């Protein structure tokens, strides 16, 4: 088959994770139920954003800028506007003075600047203030969403980068728990990287991918449904219990499967769809669509995250290439009932279950994934290192799972969890309905080093790793270089006092005479390479940076 250019994994992408949040103390936990989850979420966000010395000046956070109602459609994708307010308002006592789009978290109760005092006093202020948002030095958004702390990792261009940034979010969550544990009179918190409490509540781990707007959304939907419904055999995190409340005993591949109720739709908290239509690209909407994927599980196993992002990016690259060239790449794998297929596949750890295709065939999830792999491998760029790595991982894991799922126990997360549970079941002679197995499922994702069972598997070498701990540690305070996150995080890192707010596509920088708001409607602008090209050195003084940005605007 000939296409104009071979497919790679390169694309703007990112992961956002809502953490489970509970009192660490079991008596407090039993007493509070879910009633304190919002308070605990505010403490978690405030602890890291205001108090961790590695994050920056104590008590000073960068506020979240939601972006504008009027999207920037400028073909250059870049502009610099004078902000509406005097710089004194931009740096002190900020309250929506300069731009209407800056967050409106709870009604202001007291001063915006954190008080002097010990950690407990600052945390009490954060809780009373309902502190709900911060932009971190690594370019991430760290905030309260509904009743969960959420880490929206900075946007990246590659699956491996996404793994590093996702792991950095786990470490930030750990540091936040550590700060709360050390503060007198403040509740100690436990955070879980999972997706359900097993009692009907689910919270998400969402992936975002920018896609060429020219590809018709109906085509995206038709192609993504069979891909997303079946990929759980490779990247599911595993779950004890069947049904949203775990009402039937057993084990299933995916923690999110039972919460998917529709094929396509806008909602994320009710009637959740396999393909979500939320379309806020945080970029030029004439050029980009953001595909918001909500079906995915929270993965702790790094290869699962890598494969999840890498394969989805390749499928989207195939769709873009099909649209550009008019030549078909992906086979027709439309399912008769995708929502039912998600559950059928998730509920069968033998992987033998078949689902019906519109063309009448009955195929297993492994066969459907293999068909995707074969079609994409034929037109993928194997000279691109990450693309080759994704294709190899995809093929190797399909081979292992076809032969015997147990062979993939160190690389496929649901298999790793199932093997742990089966060993424990055998040792103690337990039925699947035993609460000890549900407890293992929950404690598996506990992010506290001493309690988390995945951490034990990892430390014992029972699961493989993909990235180095040194990279992960660095990514907590250093933004990825490949996107505008570099400019956002770099400015916050070097000049926090001059950056009152930032968002995905906007950064406000306070100069000596006025404030300026940068708009970056293409996420690839603002990368380290882009900054170098335009002579923008983020370590120099803000006025020099503003001059360089002005030159960049007039040159583009």
């Amino acid at each position: 088959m000939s296409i104009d250019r071979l497919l790679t994994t390169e694309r703007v992408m990112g992961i956002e994770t809502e953490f489970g949040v509970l009192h660490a103390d079991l008596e407090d936990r039993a007493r509070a139920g879910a009633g304190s989850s919002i308070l605990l979420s505010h403490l978690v966000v405030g602890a890291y954003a205001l108090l961790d010395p590695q994050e920056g000046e104590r008590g000073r956070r960068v506020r979240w800028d939601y972006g504008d109602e009027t999207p920037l459609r400028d073909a250059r994708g870049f502009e610099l506007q004078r902000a509406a307010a005097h710089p004194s308002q931009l740096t002190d006592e900020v309250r929506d003075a300069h731009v209407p789009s800056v967050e409106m978290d709870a009604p202001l109760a007291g001063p915006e600047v954190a008080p002097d005092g010990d950690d407990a006093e600052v945390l009490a202020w954060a809780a009373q203030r309902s502190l709900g948002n911060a932009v971190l030095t690594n370019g991430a958004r760290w905030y309260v969403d509904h009743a969960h702390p959420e880490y929206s990792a900075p946007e990246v261009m590659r699956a491996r980068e996404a793994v590093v940034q996702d792991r950095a979010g786990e470490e930030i969550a750990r540091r936040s728990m550590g700060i709360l544990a050390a503060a007198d009179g403040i509740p100690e918190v436990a955070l879980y990287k999972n997706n359900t409490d097993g009692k009907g509540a689910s919270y998400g781990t969402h992936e975002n991918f920018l896609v060429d707007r020219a590809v018709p959304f109906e085509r995206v939907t038709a192609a993504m449904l069979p891909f997303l419904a079946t990929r759980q055999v490779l990247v599911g995190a595993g779950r004890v219990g069947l049904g949203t409340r775990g009402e039937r005993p057993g084990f299933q591949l995916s923690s999110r499967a039972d919460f998917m109720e529709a094929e396509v739709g806008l909602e994320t908290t009710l009637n959740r769809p396999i393909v979500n239509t939320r379309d806020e690209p945080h970029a030029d909407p004439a050029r980009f669509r953001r595909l918001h994927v909500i079906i995915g599980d929270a993965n702790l196993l790094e290869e699962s995250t890598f494969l999840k992002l890498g394969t989805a990016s390749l499928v989207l690259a195939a769709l873009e290439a099909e649209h550009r060239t008019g030549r078909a790449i992906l086979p027709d794998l439309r399912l008769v009932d995708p929502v039912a297929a998600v559950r059928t596949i998730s509920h069968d750890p033998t992987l033998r279950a078949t689902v019906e295709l519109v063309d009448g065939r009955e195929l297993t999830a492994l066969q459907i994934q293999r068909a995707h792999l074969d079609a994409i491998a034929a037109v993928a760029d194997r000279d691109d290192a990450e693309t080759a790595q994704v294709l190899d991982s995809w093929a190797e894991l399909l081979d292992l799972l076809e032969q015997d799922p147990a062979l993939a126990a160190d690389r496929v997360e649901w298999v790793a969890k199932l093997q742990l549970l089966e060993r424990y079941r055998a040792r103690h002679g337990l039925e699947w309905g035993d609460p000890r197995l549900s407890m293992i499922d929950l404690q598996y994702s506990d992010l506290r080093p001493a309690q988390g069972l995945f951490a034990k598997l990892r430390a014992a070498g029972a699961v493989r790793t993909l990235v180095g701990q040194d990279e992960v540690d660095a990514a907590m305070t250093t933004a990825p270089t490949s996107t505008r996150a570099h400019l956002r995080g770099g400015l916050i890192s070097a000049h926090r006092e001059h950056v009152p707010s930032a968002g995905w596509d906007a950064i406000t920088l306070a100069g000596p005479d006025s404030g300026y708001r940068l708009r970056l409607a293409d996420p690839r602008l603002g990368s380290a390479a882009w900054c170098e090209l335009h002579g923008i050195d983020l370590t120099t003084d803000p006025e020099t940076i503003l001059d360089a940005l002005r030159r960049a605007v007039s040159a583009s």
Partner: protein
Amino acid sequence: MSQQSLNGPGTGGEDEQNEVAATGGQTFASAQGADDLLDEIDAVLESNAETFVRSFVQKGGQ
């Protein structure tokens, strides 16, 4: 994915975990390793599973 692209267990986790990893061999690949790992997991599990599971209650999110 090639073996070379994957790091060994020693690159991850906290210091405490690295000490465990350094002793090595605690995988499910050997019966002894599996037993050791299950012992360790038994030691960190909460004692009252029923209460633990019942009190793990969250509000729904996205």
